[in-house]
């Protein structure tokens, strides 16, 4: 598989980072400085590419998902601005509480928001097109 480098210029400058590595789950605040990602797990990031990674702020999310079947990596940028143009009936805002073991740490909020973007399929059923995680 081609090596994949996380395009630092596409990330929100500051926000939260969540990823599933082979042996652990990482969820912590990060910052982009001088073209590099600064966070506790940055060493891990250099050695290993997680199955999927989310970098999100209040208004934007950058996500990458490794797709082994096609040997590619799917990259997505989801923004609040896009949502302003979407049909509000197809957007569903969900708020979840963050577990204490994470929210107790500095920089991690007590709640996270997920904006679910729905669409209608050919059969007129409601299908989840995508979602954006937000602070």
């Amino acid at each position, binding site marked *: 598989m081609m090596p994949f480098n996380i395009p630092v210029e596409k990330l929100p400058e500051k926000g939260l980072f969540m990823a*599933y590595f082979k042996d652990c*789950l990482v969820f912590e605040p990060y910052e982009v400085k001088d073209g590099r990602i600064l966070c506790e797990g940055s060493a891990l990031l250099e050695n290993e590419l997680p199955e999927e990674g989310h970098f999100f702020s209040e208004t934007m999310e950058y*996500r990458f*998902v490794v*797709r082994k*079947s096609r040997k590619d990596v799917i990259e*997505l940028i989801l923004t609040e601005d896009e949502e302003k143009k979407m049909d509000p009936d197809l957007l569903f805002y969900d708020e979840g509480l963050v577990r204490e073991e994470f929210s107790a740490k500095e920089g991690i909020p007590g709640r996270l928001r997920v904006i679910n973007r729905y669409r209608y399929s050919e059969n007129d059923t409601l299908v989840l*097109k*995508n979602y954006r995680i937000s602070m």
Partner: protein
Amino acid sequence: MISIEMRTIGEVSFENSVKTTEGYHYDIPCDRFGIPCIPIGRVLSELGVDLKGVTVGFAHPDGYMGLAVEAGKMISQYPEAISFIRGYFTNTRFLEKENYSVRSLKSGQRYFATLSFSVGESEQSIVAKEEALKAALSGIKKIGVNMGEVTGEVSFSLVETDDLFVEHQTLSDLCSYHAVDYSVLLVTPTCFYQPYADGPSTSLYIPGGVIRELLRKALSIEGEDGEELICTNAYIGDGQKRLLPVPACATLVKNDKTQLRYRIAPGRDPHRSEQPAGLSDRYTGDTESHLITYTSPETERIRSIDGTMADALTAGQTFRGTVYGSDEQIRRIVEYFQKHAITNLGTFAEEGFGEVCVKIDAVREQAPKATVLADTFDVCCLSDTLLLNEEGMPAVSAEDLLGEIEYILNMQGELTIESKYTGIYKDYSKNIRWDHDGVIVRCIARGAILRVKRKDNKPVNIFPILHTFIGEHVNEGWGEIRTVPARDGYYRLAMQTAPAYYAVSFPDSLRQMKLSALFVAIVMEDILKSRIKGLALVDREEYRKGVPVSELKPEEILMEYRERYAPQLPVRMLFEWYEEGLKDDAV
């Protein structure tokens, strides 16, 4: 292979076992055939023996595998044999004063429990643990309860037992192998815990991920090498082959479960209305015949040491799967299982559950390419399939599955769906793995089936999709698909069969044969004796009135029974038992 040997010097019984029968205060846990299977690991840790890093299997009587096979045969002929089998190993006493019964192991018996260590542990570490265990065991003289004749006196020792289960596999130097088929026989109840599922809280098959994890540890396969290893799910076997999930298009008729409707085929009579009943979690060997036989793995309740109640797959069932890999990996796998046939899988494995015996069935090379043409063909998902669309989201519709097929055959946009039966499965494994922080993944459920053909009706070479893996998590057995040319037959028949127990053949040692033969002979004699005493019971009243024995004795019937149950017994013995029965005071 090292085992713990337990000799019963006095009689032994336990309290608080999960399987205490009603009316019994102290009981012996037995398997489905009535043969004792004792969670000796639990007993020993309760007595203070340090079992950290050692897994102790259940204790079974000497020659258990052979005995189980014979017990199964006897019970299928005479279902009442089960109480006599129990009686071969245990005594039952009813205590009038206390108003309960006690079942205890007879004295003078030998029981064995296998010891397993962590996969990949060093020889030194294992030897050290064995020494410590030997010392601890020598101090234990009694287990279980102590009351009256049930003294609980036992003696423990560590012994080296033969690897009875291994049939030596010869691999050719000329071949380049690519797959190994294996069978896993459950020796103790095995649980793959899934607390959120509808139905039993165990997976009804061995997930490919479990096998892959085992191999990864056993062979120290890391990183890139691991990408080549594909472990399918091990589904229940019928004694000869791996059974596969019944496709979603097969449903039974609710009011007559012998009728099956294979709804993807044409030919439905629109004037008939029937109510369907699903066939999920059922496995079949053949979806092409008119009569489809299916089976469902059996489960039982178990309780772990910390009190969790769960379902577990009943011991004795076999599960079959395949591992695909490079030639070097396949050879290493075969070598590993020849040395370590007994291993522990699943949840609660440290407590002795999940003890299994792995047997290599076949080692195969890659089949040479061929052209297999079909006008219309059925693609069936044999395992849960996760496809990711261009937005990184799981794609779960039939059209998405078609898109993947077109991609593999390089026929984008040329195929069309004639008929489809799909389902969605919510997979909680990431959620459980990451302690409920992981996502719950929606994927195409196993059993999903599509009937596909080309839009321009030309035939298609289906060889690339005859049996392959698609989508994500393929290394763990996800995305296994199979394609067959389409068959007619909407109206079919169905028959449910019980799973095959102890249907794996092992080479028999002379000792094993002798133990099994003795077991069968004695159980049959006990059945015969009980039958004869039953005859005597009927005649007892007349005997008491003074009718002589010679007139009462039903010689013909006695001889017939002798022929049926124990032709080797001297006739004199039967007559003695009959007379004893006449004179007996007890009922």
